[in-house]
């Protein structure tokens, strides 16, 4: 109890380095395992080019987020909404945003459960996995964003090393002829793959505006460092897309749910290193922990701040329970999940990850005078 009160009073602060590492892990999150399949299904031989296009287009979205952070440097998304849209409309939009973050958290939790149940621990009930993962997430969020960021700092080198092992040892199996002829896909195909990839990797970064720039301690020369971090994160996605399509072939990659996992399974270095798939599973679960944590953090803090609770920590455990319950019913089947992600997810994430911040920025500028007078 005493501890909770102390946590409620302490102002949290994270470094820019910690924030960038968190952002990289968030971008890699689900994409490292899922993106190659969707990119190969849309853009065939040019899946990796589609990922490059997504990286380029994503830069614009990152710059948009940065512009908003500079427009309202000491505020988070809930503050900005209420300031720009007015108290009640701002609160209504914030509640919708909390719902978006909660749905996203539940879908990520479902993805972890589905991956483990179908690939590794086949006979374990999904509910047990969801409980265990969510327990770690709720505990982390109870301890605060500083703890999550420090954890990201600790795990980052391990994640990069584990992924690099898979990348390096896959290089001997790369066959460029698998993706020839190059640039064979149409612009439509490439842009379809890129759009879906952006909706998974870049647009959800909006949830980080609950942390950035309010809790980031150093505020000088942020943009170049953030862009560099973003490009590094996307490098992992482009590289794994290139490797999966050139090693497995485009058709096999497109037909697999988790092509990166299949790559890791097929690794065999002179009979010495085999069954390396758990490496990719561990690194993926670590990255997804941070993605899930940030979605959950956004849903809890936005809700708590919008309805004016004294501390968000009091509702983390019941919200965790709701996330688990939601994750059990969110996708009735894998086919439903694929169909929903292909048709609706793009628009859902575009609404909250692009239209919402863009409107906040534009309306904020149009109402500039009144907002600055409110501030003073």
């Amino acid at each position, binding site marked *: 109890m005493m501890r909770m009160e102390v946590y409620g009073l302490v102002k949290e602060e994270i470094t820019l380095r910690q924030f960038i590492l968190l952002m990289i892990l968030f971008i890699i999150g689900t994409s490292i395992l899922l993106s190659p399949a969707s990119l190969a299904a849309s853009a065939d031989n040019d899946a990796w080019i589609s990922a490059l296009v997504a990286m380029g287009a994503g830069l614009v979205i990152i710059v948009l987020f940065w512009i908003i952070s500079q427009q309202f440097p000491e505020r988070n998304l809930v503050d900005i909404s209420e300031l720009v849209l007015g108290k009640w409309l701002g609160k209504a939009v914030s509640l919708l945003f909390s719902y978006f973050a909660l749905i996203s958290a539940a879908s990520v939790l479902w993805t972890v459960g589905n991956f483990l149940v179908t690939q590794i621990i086949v006979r374990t009930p999904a509910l047990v996995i969801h409980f265990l993962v969510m327990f770690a997430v709720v505990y982390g969020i109870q301890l605060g964003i500083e703890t999550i960021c420090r954890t990201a700092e600790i795990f980052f080198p391990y994640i990069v090393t584990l992924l690099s092992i898979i990348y390096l040892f896959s290089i001997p199996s790369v066959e460029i002829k698998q993706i020839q002829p190059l640039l064979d896909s149409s612009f439509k195909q490439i842009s379809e793959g890129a759009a879906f990839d952006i909706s998974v990797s870049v647009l959800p970064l909006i949830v980080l505006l609950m942390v950035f720039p309010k809790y980031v301690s150093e505020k000088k020369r942020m943009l170049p460092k953030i862009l560099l971090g973003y490009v590094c994160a996307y490098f992992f996605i482009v590289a794994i897309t290139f490797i999966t399509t050139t090693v497995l072939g485009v058709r096999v990659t497109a037909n697999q749910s988790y092509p990166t996992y299949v790559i890791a399974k097929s690794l065999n270095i002179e009979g010495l290193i085999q069954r390396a798939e758990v490496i990719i599973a561990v690194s993926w679960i670590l990255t997804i922990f941070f993605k899930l944590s940030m979605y959950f953090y956004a849903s809890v803090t936005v809700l708590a701040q919008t309805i*004016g609770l004294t501390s968000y920590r009091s509702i983390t*455990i*019941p919200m965790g*329970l709701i996330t688990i319950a939601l994750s059990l*019913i969110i996708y009735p089947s894998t086919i439903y999940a694929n169909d929903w992600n292909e*048709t*609706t997810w793009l*628009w859902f994430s575009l609404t909250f990850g692009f239209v919402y911040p863009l409107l906040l920025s534009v309306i904020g500028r149009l109402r500039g005078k009144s907002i600055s007078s409110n501030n003073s």
Partner: protein
Amino acid sequence: MWLILLMVILVWSGIGLKGLRKKGSVKDMATYIILWAIGTTGLMLYRFGISIPTPLDGIAYIYHPLSSLWKQWFA
């Protein structure tokens, strides 16, 4: 297993509620109780096999015009 889970949930929520009562914030307590009730109800409905429509159906309905346009464009 489900009975144990329900007991743990109830005891846990009781401990949390006791802490919030000491703090004396009515809004926090009300939100806490409502969220616990929603979460526990959701889990119990799942346990007893009572089908709950996924919230994604509602979202899909809202975005249907846009997603069908997208499908036509990339058909």
